[in-house]
């Protein structure tokens, strides 16, 4: 074709440029084109297409400064939207693009200019346009500069299936699209691969494992026309299918067994991994698969407990990101990072978009604004979590999973009993007989004080701060003073000052005598006696489990308005999830009481609605009834209950211990005033501390303040108020009424048993919304501490919009999931289909499976991609929507998939990277496949599915070289766990298994949807030298050789063929048979004659050498823990081991063909 320059281009050259075609120049009333552009213009397509030809150029070279980023649009120019590009610029008056008028288009002048101040892209950008690209832009303008919507942002509609006139090749609709495209490109398609190659290929693709030799034989023997389809169906039903499918999904879900960041402690995430495997195996609808992961906690809870738990475990998808344990981090900074990671992962894994670019500014290339980013992030911002996660205890929110059926049954039993106790309590409280007993007690009580309990009953700490001694410590001249305050409830356990002892803690006058002031560097602590791990309540008087009622009362005068933190606490601090209890002053002056297993979600957390007055002594009292419920906590000020609101009511486990009575480090696990963990608090005074190992009732607390016997006064008051009546009734039930007390004791015992039992079960992180949504703001430059405008949860403005719920409630993750799966969502189905395709073909129909935006490559077969997306989304032909196995069956039974991957050099060059699918897929196998292949081939593979991650062979000292705490040592396991599939290998983010990294496994720091497939010398070292591979070679040899060569046993004296004495490489049927078995096991086919020749020679050489050096043979055979077959002569076995190892390093053991 010719590039016609119309006479409309009357613009003339400022340019000194030279042109190639003199004849063309002669016309002269024409725009001048540089010679190279002119040359390039001669080979352009007839019709220039915006999506195909132009946008890739504009996006890559222009959008960074003239694209969607509103803050970076230079000269007010925006080239991604037609109206803007066609309009005259305000600043210069130039029109960027005049459709059909090249000379009138400023863009044209800029791209051909040689003036460094004029030319675009500007030299500062380090970007340039090629001559062909310039020619394309010019021709596009000439043809009318038509813009089109981006292909991936328009919902797919079912395309018409092309009907090839040659239908001999096509097996299903997939092939009809592929055939039509090949025809269009004038390419030829490859014939079907041989049966063995095909079975190996589809087995590796669907299960990650090679076919067994028996499966190959059976397949070869099956002459039925649908033999292949039968094999596919068998593989889709294999339990190993889920394992294979899970690998890719776990990359996207950035699954790992440790938290990452610098401390990188272990986490219990494997139940999520197992759920993914099971979900694929069960062919869970993709809709359910995704919805549960995004919002399993927001769906109606299933009545089936196992299903209900699975729905929560699935939400671990959004907890797989890295989390930080580092002391001293700013939690809010990390919370922002977690939310960001979830947003980025959602963008990449579900939408195929690089939304993370909009974290700091509007996206440079795609229509994703910064506001879009934070609106999307708002869906993930409400998790009830804390940025600094504990070393001990799975970060909350979490769900507890029973580790055995008996534990599950016991828990069920206990919980049912607790329900009964609660029902009985409710019944008792309103029943006639109790009321009668109450009335009679009221009458007799004044005369019988023994029906009332002593005010000192259960008093375990009583520190008036008026009685103290000063103890001198340290060397002379550097003496320090430790102030020791008497504990009137237990004279062996006084309260002492700690920290800076240079300055004795100062006294202050309080309403009840002499109090003390917290000045920051020192604090007061009541230490228990003996090892606190073996605590007893007498030695550790202020340590309370969740089933133990207690009361703490303290006079407090806050003087520093900036005080934020605990007034008192018995709390293990952030490294243990704030396990224990604490009474805090919040930044705004209100108070909060927290009783936690792992705060903030596995906790009782209640806040006052009013502020604590400053510079005023107030008697603060908290009572707790041991029910593990928020309404069991009552807060009092000056003897009167104060209004509160419940933030969290979800204390499910011990308030003392981590799993199996564990705790991290020491910190300050004691009852303390002025310190929590290793942080000090100051700016307040305290006096008269009392701790009771029972719940005081309202009248008791009131009496503590008024110093009167409020109980007797209320009983004697004939005109008592309903509130006083209720208070008396509470006192009666709590302290007097035997049936009620017995029932409560029973309940406490049950709760204690439950707590003990749960200590042996595992927790898995989940999503759980806060009660009150956290407001979300645009973060300027992405910085957590520079909030901009507030945003509401919402989706990207350029995609389908969220329907209004109509109930005024804010939108949540469930709405997001529904939006994603809605028929008008343009991305999700395409993105998923493309990744399934990539799984088989090594690359997607859209090659950039991680970028469906403007910068991503266009799909090679857009209609096929849409066809498959619609098939997946809508189902049809008797297939339900979102049926993954059906989609995969469609792909792997296509003629396209079944092509041979070995094609002529010419055919390969014609379609160099197989964009047009003119041959079968081949690629270097994944790290998992390479290792699993040798385990399976050797017979070592342990077939068990799921369970905690395992510790196979690994070079020594890898963890130890980097870690300084928290899972420092790698302890290799033994027995059959050495031979589990690679998906189960422990993944420590800071020290991933080097074998896996060498073969390009994803590092699991963030969402990855496409691994590299490189080839390096370090890979060769693995497959040659890793003990796992060497052992597998030996085990393969010893499994094959005795079967084939019984005569090689020393006890068999009459060998027909003995390789020891007959090293002849050819003509030895036994040797041939062994080599064939190696080949069949490792690469699924028998060896070819030339291969047998080569390996027979190797065997002979090695055998001779090992016979000369028996020690070498012995040491080689000692590699690995699997027992050596001592029946075989060591030299023979060693020589065979080398041969097997050679086949393991052979092309087909590494490359799927």
């Amino acid at each position, binding site marked *: 074709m010719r590039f016609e320059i119309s006479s409309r281009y009357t613009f003339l050259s400022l340019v000194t440029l030279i042109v190639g075609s003199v004849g063309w120049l002669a016309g002269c009333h024409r725009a001048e084109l540089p010679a190279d552009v002119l040359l390039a213009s001669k080979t352009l397509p007839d019709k220039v297409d915006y999506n195909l030809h132009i946008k890739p150029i504009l996006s890559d070279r222009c959008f960074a400064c003239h694209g969607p980023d509103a803050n970076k649009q230079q000269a007010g120019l925006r080239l991604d939207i037609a109206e803007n590009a066609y309009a005259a610029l305000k600043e210069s008056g130039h029109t960027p693009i005049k459709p059909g008028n090249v000379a009138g288009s400023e863009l044209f002048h800029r791209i051909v200019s040689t003036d460094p101040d004029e030319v675009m892209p500007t030299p500062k950008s380090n970007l340039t346009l090629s001559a062909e690209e310039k020619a394309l832009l010019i021709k596009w303008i000439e043809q009318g500069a038509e813009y089109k919507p981006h292909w991936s942002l328009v919902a797919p509609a079912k395309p018409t299936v092309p009907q090839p006139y040659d239908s001999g090749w096509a097996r299903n609709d997939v092939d009809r699209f592929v055939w039509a495209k090949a025809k269009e490109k004038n390419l030829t398609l490859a014939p079907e691969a041989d049966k063995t190659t095909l079975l190996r290929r589809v087995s590796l693709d669907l299960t990650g494992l090679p076919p067994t030799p028996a499966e190959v034989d059976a397949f070869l023997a099956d002459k039925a026309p649908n033999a292949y389809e039968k094999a596919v169906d068998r593989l889709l039903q294999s339990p190993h299918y889920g394992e294979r499918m899970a690998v890719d999904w776990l990359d996207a879900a950035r699954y790992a067994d440790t938290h990452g960041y610098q401390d990188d402690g272990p986490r219990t995430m494997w139940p999520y991994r197992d759920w993914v495997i099971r979900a694929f195996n069960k062919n869970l609808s993709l809709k359910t698969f995704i919805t549960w992961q995004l919002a399993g906690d927001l769906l109606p809870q299933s009545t089936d407990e196992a299903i209900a738990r699975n729905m929560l475990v699935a939400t671990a998808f959004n907890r797989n990101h890295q989390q930080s344990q580092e002391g*001293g981090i700013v939690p809010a900074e990390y919370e922002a*990072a977690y939310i960001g990671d979830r947003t980025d992962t959602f963008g990449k894994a579900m939408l195929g978009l690089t939304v993370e670019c909009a974290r700091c500014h509007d996206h440079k290339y795609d229509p994703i604004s910064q506001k879009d980013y934070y609106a999307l992030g708002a869906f993930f911002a409400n998790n009830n979590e804390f940025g600094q996660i504990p070393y001990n205890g799975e970060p909350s929110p979490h769900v507890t999973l029973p580790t055995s059926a008996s534990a599950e049954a016991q828990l069920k039993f206990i919980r049912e009993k607790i329900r009964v106790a609660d029902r009985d309590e409710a019944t008792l409280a309103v029943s006639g007989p109790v009321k009668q007993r109450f009335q009679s007690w009221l009458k007799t009580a004044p005369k019988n004080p023994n029906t009332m309990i002593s005010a000192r009953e259960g008093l375990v700490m009583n520190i008036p701060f008026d009685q103290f001694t000063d103890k001198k410590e340290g060397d002379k001249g550097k003496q320090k003073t430790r102030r020791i305050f008497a504990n009137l409830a237990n004279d062996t356990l006084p309260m002492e000052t700690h920290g800076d002892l240079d300055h004795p803690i100062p006294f202050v006058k309080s309403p009840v005598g002499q109090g003390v002031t917290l000045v920051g560097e020192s604090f007061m602590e009541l230490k228990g006696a003996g090892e606190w791990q073996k605590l007893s309540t007498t030695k550790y008087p202020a340590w309370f489990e969740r089933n133990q009622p207690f009361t703490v009362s303290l006079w407090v005068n806050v003087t520093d308005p900036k005080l934020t933190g605990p007034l008192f606490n018995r709390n293990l601090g952030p490294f243990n999830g704030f396990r224990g209890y604490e009474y805090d002053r919040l930044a705004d002056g209100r108070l909060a009481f927290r009783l936690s297993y792992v705060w903030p979600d596995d906790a009782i957390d209640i806040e006052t609605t009013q502020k604590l007055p400053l510079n005023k002594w107030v008697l603060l009292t908290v009572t707790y009834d041991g029910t593990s419920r928020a309404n069991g906590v009552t807060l009092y000020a000056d003897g009167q209950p104060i209004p509160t609101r419940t933030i969290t009511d979800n204390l499910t486990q011990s308030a003392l211990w981590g799993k199996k009575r564990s705790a991290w480090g020491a910190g300050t696990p004691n009852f303390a005033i002025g310190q929590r963990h290793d942080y000090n608090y100051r700016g307040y005074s305290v006096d008269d501390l009392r701790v009771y190992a029972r719940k005081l009732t309202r009248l008791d607390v009131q009496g503590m303040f008024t110093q009167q016997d409020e109980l007797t006064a209320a009983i004697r008051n004939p005109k008592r108020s309903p509130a006083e009546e209720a208070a008396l009734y509470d006192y009666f039930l709590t302290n007097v009424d035997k049936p009620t007390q017995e029932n409560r004791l029973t309940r406490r015992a049950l709760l204690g048993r439950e707590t003990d039992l749960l200590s042996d079960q595992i927790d898995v992180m989940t999503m759980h919304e806060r009660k009150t949504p956290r407001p979300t703001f645009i973060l300027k430059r992405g910085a957590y501490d520079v909030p901009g405008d507030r945003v509401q949860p919402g989706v990207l403005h350029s995609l389908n919009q969220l329907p209004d719920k109509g109930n005024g409630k804010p939108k949540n993750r469930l709405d997001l999931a529904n939006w994603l799966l809605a028929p008008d969502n343009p991305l999700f189905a395409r993105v998923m289909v493309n990744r399934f395709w990539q799984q088989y073909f090594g690359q997607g129909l859209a090659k950039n499976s991680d970028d469906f935006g403007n910068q991503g490559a266009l799909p090679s077969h857009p209609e096929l991609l849409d066809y498959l997306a619609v098939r997946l989304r809508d189902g049809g032909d008797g297939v339900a929507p979102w049926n993954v196995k059906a989609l995969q069956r469609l792909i792997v039974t296509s003629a396209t998939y079944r092509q041979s991957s070995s094609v002529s050099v010419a055919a390969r060059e014609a379609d160099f990277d197989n964009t047009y699918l003119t041959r079968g897929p081949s690629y270097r196998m994944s790290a998992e496949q390479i290792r699993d292949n040798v385990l399976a081939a050797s017979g070592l593979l342990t077939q068990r599915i799921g369970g905690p991650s395992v510790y196979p062979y690994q070079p*020594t000292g890898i963890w130890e070289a980097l870690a300084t705490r928290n899972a420092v040592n790698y302890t290799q396991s033994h027995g059959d766990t050495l031979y589990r599939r690679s998906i189960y290998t422990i993944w420590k983010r800071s020290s991933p298994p080097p074998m896996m990294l*060498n073969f390009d496994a994803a590092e699991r720091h963030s969402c990855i949807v496409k691994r590299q497939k490189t080839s390096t010398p370090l890979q060769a070292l693995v497959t040659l030298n890793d003990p796992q591979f060497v052992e597998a070679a030996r085990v393969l040899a010893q499994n094959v050789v005795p079967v084939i060569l019984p005569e090689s046993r020393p006890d068999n004296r009459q060998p027909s063929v003995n390789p020891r004495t007959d090293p002849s490489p050819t003509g030895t049927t036994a040797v041939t048979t062994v080599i064939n078995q190696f080949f069949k096991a490792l690469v699924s086919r028998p060896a070819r004659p030339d291969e047998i020749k080569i390996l027979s020679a190797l065997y002979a050489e090695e055998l001779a050498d090992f016979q000369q050096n028996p020690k070498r043979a012995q040491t080689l055979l*000692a590699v690995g823990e699997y027992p050596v077959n001592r029946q075989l002569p060591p030299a023979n076995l060693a020589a065979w081991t080398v041969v097997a190892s050679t086949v393991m390093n*052979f092309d087909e053991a590494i490359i799927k063909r």
Partner: protein
Amino acid sequence: MDIQDQIHDQFSRRNFLGQTGAGIGTLALASLLNPGKLFGGTPSPGDGPALGKPHFPPKVKRVIYLFQSGAPSQLELFDYKPKLEAMFGQDLPESVRKGQRLTGMTAGQSSFPLAASAYKFAQHGHSQMWLSELLPHTARMTDDLCFIRTMNTDAINHDPAITFIQTGSQQAGRPSFGSWVSYGLGSDNQNMPAFVVLLSKGRGGDQPLYAKLWSNGFLPSVHQGVVFRSGPDPVYYLNNPPGIDRSSRRRMLDKLAQLNAEQMKHVLDPEINNRMQQYEMAYRMQASVPETLDLSKEPAYIFDAYGPDSRKPGTFAANCLLARKLIEKDVKFVQLYHQGWDQHGNLPKDIKTQATSVDQASAALVQDLKQRGLLDDTLVIWGGEFGRGPYSQGKLTRDNYGRDHHPRCYTIWMAGAGVKKSFVFGETDDFGYNIVKDPVHIHDFQATIMHLMGVDHEKLTFKHQGRRYRLTDVHGKVIKPLLA
């Protein structure tokens, strides 16, 4: 590789070619005979490093980066602040701090008492620069050193800060400095990776390290930092299995090559040839790596120069010596990590131990390179991820205190090619809290090193997910006054 191996290689290659005849394309044949580029950068044969050649003539051909993990306190080592002595125990004025954010470790502290260095400073060399008594060996070579006192970073915690200085981003996933160099410039040695990592620990129980720091990120994995370890297995899986010797391995690889050559006839996939080259490279590495790491032939005076630790494998001193040997083998980027500088409390005692563990060897390395003429085209860098603050963390006494993280200024030094000698750049205020002149941001530092290596940091990019990434993100400028 010793002569015998070379002969053997030649022989086996010829032998192999003779047998396979025309089975291999000429392209593959050429690169098989000239395999120097295998570690040089790209998985496909024939391609060179991404840049082809540097943007401008490089001053620095190789870098040794002595990374001091945990953040050494510049106030005890490099940045002399008599004012802290004068105002000992007084609060850091709010007019200086200006509400800057603190780590959670000191955010709750009621006061910020200024802590003077427990160690004396004195002036050294032509430039009369102040250096602490903790670094006597370093002090003796001040005339070779180029100090930057005004390094500053964006992160206040170890993980993001180390990730930042190593990869240009606080978030995991970007390529390491050395990976960028490997990708851009390739390797100068056919038997060694371009980017080698050595690890050592000082004081126990300090901050951990993480493999992501030397990760190739989204670059091809051939550019990942290869950890060389002390002990018998210096590179993971380098050694043949017990019982397999070098000639046995050679026989096996020859047969493997024959198998693959046969296979090539059937599948016609050039990937096969590429992979065969990787096996040959692995074979050569098996000889070259142990040979390079073998310190047994080093004379006693060398060990004496590097200090007694240099005889103990796995120490910082031994790694310094190894670094010199790697440089002699033309490894482009040698990155040492030395743990143990995170002195939040008990600083005076701990920093002394820690400084002693690095001072002599760091100085010896520079002098050793100098004597061998290697310092003319090698750059040595010494420093951590951020600095430490002027006020005490925890209780301040005359002889004991701690220091919290401080990202706003800290000191590093460089020595060798392309940078000024006997030079101090940048000034901090009297408290060592803020920079008053010539700040050098992490991205500037990275841009400057790149520049010294002949690379325009804005032009060495890698397109990933639609975006062109570079080490310096979208920032960084070359600090010209540092250049010789």
